[in-house]
């Protein structure tokens, strides 16, 4: 508690914001090629999204310090989400 948690939360926020800005920069520099489905962009966006959502759940929502059951539940949802999105995109 106290200062260590505050520092941890601040670094979590900095990390998430940096990832968001980096993804923006990547998207902006991907060029204006022909408008067609781009699996690399889709996979990259999905990967970045899942990482950010999991960090929010673990650090901001404090699932890190909750019983393992809770993490298993949220991770099961994330796995289901990723699986379903991959099937929807590539099937």
């Amino acid at each position, binding site marked *: 508690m*106290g200062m260590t948690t505050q520092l941890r*939360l601040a670094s979590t926020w900095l990390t998430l*914001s940096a990832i968001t800005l980096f993804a923006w920069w990547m998207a902006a520099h991907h060029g204006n090629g022909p408008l*067609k489905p781009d699996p690399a962009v889709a996979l990259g966006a999905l990967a970045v999204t899942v990482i950010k959502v999991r960090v929010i759940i673990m650090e*901001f929502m404090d699932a890190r310090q909750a019983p*393992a059951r809770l993490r298993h539940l949220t991770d099961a*949802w994330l796995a289901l989400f990723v699986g379903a999105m991959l099937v929807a*995109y590539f099937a």
Partner: protein
Amino acid sequence: MTDVAREASPGEQSRALRVPGQPDMWVLVMIEALTFSAYFVVYTVRYKMSPDVFLQSQAHLYLRFGVLNALILLASSWSIARCVDRARAGDYNAALNDAWLTIVGGVVFMLLKFHEWSVEIGNGFTFTTNEFFSFYYFLTGMHLLHVFVGFIALGVVIYQLSSPARRSQEIIETGATFWHMVDFLWVIIFALLYVMR
């Protein structure tokens, strides 16, 4: 307790493992997450069926609005996380300031969303323009509804913090959990509508 020692940083080892806030809120978060996941999968299926329409329409969104909104919600999520930690430590005045800051973030998000919608409508893109814009207004609208419910949750947090007679840590954490969900749902909607190709 070995689990705590392994995962928590030194100052945090005294806390036992427990679910933050009321477990019912986590049930709600998972139901919402599954519901929105269904929307996201349906969106992706429809996108793959007519990528041209979706991609041409997506090119008319302003990526900077989506990014700015993501940054605003991340900052407000950080703010309510600080609030929970400070309330836990008994620093209720600082916690109250954090809760108000969180609401300010939500209000700025909402105003920016209204502005973005009015710009898109001004450009001639409405709910009925095509399937992409139907999804766009539906998903961002559903999300904004959750922001409004989040204002109620944050109001309850502020009500709890503002009197020494209340200050239930469990209720404060419950409100915070809902607000973080509003944040992570936007993270996904942003990637889907603005970035995915």
